[in-house]
């Protein structure tokens, strides 16, 4: 791998590390209490005391953004876990057994992909009500298709390899082959999709919360901060700019990471 191509990967990695450390710091320390209201200091411009300014209730935006990283990482991690575990089962069954089961499962995945953008999550939340738990479940379900597809294609690819055939000939069961022979080889495409789906979930959560269908108070959320900031776009533009930039940096970080991982994987192949 040459130097120039590593740049995006390391840039993505550093974005993620900065935000990750921000999250750890916020667990022990924030400059102000994130929900402390200060009526005398509403919509203050960024200053030394408040580096990101204050919001319409006089709350410190930096502290609130920091606490928001917790929600973002929680949502990203849990949705990837849900998407990966269910997607793995569906993709492995479809790819390994093939035939009508594959056809049926893939049409199911196609059906899920027919809901554009966050429509699937919106529908689920319309029925089960907004909140942190349901946002995670809805976004987790939304990320199943990407995992199922990539896992299915790895399975189809490796099933035809000699080492797998040899194992089948020796009498190994499906469970053994799936976990011992195919899964280790599928790890790198899974990592690429995980990173992509992590950023996708954060993007989707900010959209849902902006619409008032995602994370509800008192849980902190960047998307809801943007909703609160919108009316003050003229009087306090930095509020909107800062919160949106943070979301973008987080999403960009994981997208670049996924891109870099894919490059490494392509080079190995």
């Amino acid at each position, binding site marked *: 791998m040459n130097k120039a191509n590593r740049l995006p990967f390391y840039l993505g990695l550093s974005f993620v590390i900065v935000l990750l450390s921000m999250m750890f710091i916020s667990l022990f320390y924030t400059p102000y209490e994130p929900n402390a209201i200060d009526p005398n200091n509403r919509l203050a411009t960024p200053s030394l005391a408040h580096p990101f300014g204050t919001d319409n209730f006089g709350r410190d935006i930096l502290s609130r953004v920091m606490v928001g990283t917790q929600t973002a990482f929680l949502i990203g991690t849990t949705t990837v876990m849900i998407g990966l575990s269910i997607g793995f089962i569906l993709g492995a069954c479809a790819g390994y057994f093939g035939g009508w089961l594959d056809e049926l499962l893939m049409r199911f995945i196609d059906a899920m992909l027919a*809901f554009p*953008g*966050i429509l699937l999550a919106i529908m689920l939340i*319309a029925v089960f009500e907004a909140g942190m738990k349901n946002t995670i479940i809805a976004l987790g379900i939304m990320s199943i298709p990407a995992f199922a597809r990539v896992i299915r294609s790895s399975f189809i690819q490796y099933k035809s390899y000699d080492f797998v055939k040899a194992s089948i000939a020796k009498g190994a069961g499906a469970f053994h082959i799936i976990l011992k022979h195919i899964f280790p080889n599928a790890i790198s495409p899974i990592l690429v999709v995980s990173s992509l789906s992590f*950023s996708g979930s954060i*993007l989707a959560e900010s959209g849902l919360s902006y619409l008032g269908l995602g994370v509800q108070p008192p849980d902190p959320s960047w998307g809801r901060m943007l909703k609160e900031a919108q009316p003050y776009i*003229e009087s306090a533009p930095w509020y909107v700019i800062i919160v*949106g930039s943070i979301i973008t940096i987080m999403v960009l970080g994981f997208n670049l990471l996924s891109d870099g991982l894919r490059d490494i994987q392509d080079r190995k192949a």
Partner: protein
Amino acid sequence: MRYYLYKTSMFILTLVMVSLIIFFVFQLLPGNPAQIILGLDADEQQIRNLEQELGLERPATERYIDWIAGVFQGNLGESLRYQLPVSEVLADRIPVTMSLAVFSMLLTILVGFPLGILIARTDGKFISVFLSMITQLGISIPSFWFGFMLILLFSVILKWFPTFGYVPWSEDFFGALRAYFLPSLAIAISNIAVVIRYLRNTILDQKKMDYVRTATCKGLSERAILYRHVLRNAFIPVLTIIGLITADTLGGSIIIENVFALPGLGNLLIQSITSRDFPLVQSMVLYIAVIVLVINFMVDLLYKLIDPRISKRGEQL
């Protein structure tokens, strides 16, 4: 012929799956749906009336069949909030969303394709890293926040466009054009980035093919090879991306309509969820999903027309 038969049967199977998923999800409403819709202070009689109206006392399979049969007759049920047939409520909203989608697709194609082709001709290492990061940024920006930024720049600072507010086409053509421009751009930005990335990768891949070397050997200029040979072959993957973008555009308009207060489907969807108008939400979700499926189906059919080499599962032979 087998290709068309296979694709058509898969299309129908997927349609059935989509309708089943939607129906099933709305069956899962926790508690009594009539109670949820009416709120906690509704009395027994009201709840019983609504149950009757929604047909809740009948078995689920019967209600599903009724719903689908209704859809085929153009009867999507009745909105609880508007007390009107769903199809009537939607009829007012569809033109807004369609205008937004078409406008945004046009922007994507007019900006994305020329830029993608132009960029594919530059092949330097640093240029490609730089481009990959810029387009990645375009994909990573939340579209609704990009909408805020457009409002801030064009409406608040430069005062070129109205902040929000909707003007129908019939009232003032140029006013409508102005009202749709910023929201369309906000949706288009990530799609433009996707098109550029995709087109560049496809063209660079095609350039490595043998036919390009042959053409170079017989003395064709690089331009001629690009326009006469490469772009033709790059068209198939591009068709795929157009199908994807259409879905993304519809998905994006759900949020963007709420940013710019455009009275389209996305705007109605969120309002209906807040007012617990479940029959309206259910039909609207079905409507949007069916549009996406139909477009993907048409793309599948076009593939075969453009390139007869394509096998039934869609891979090139």
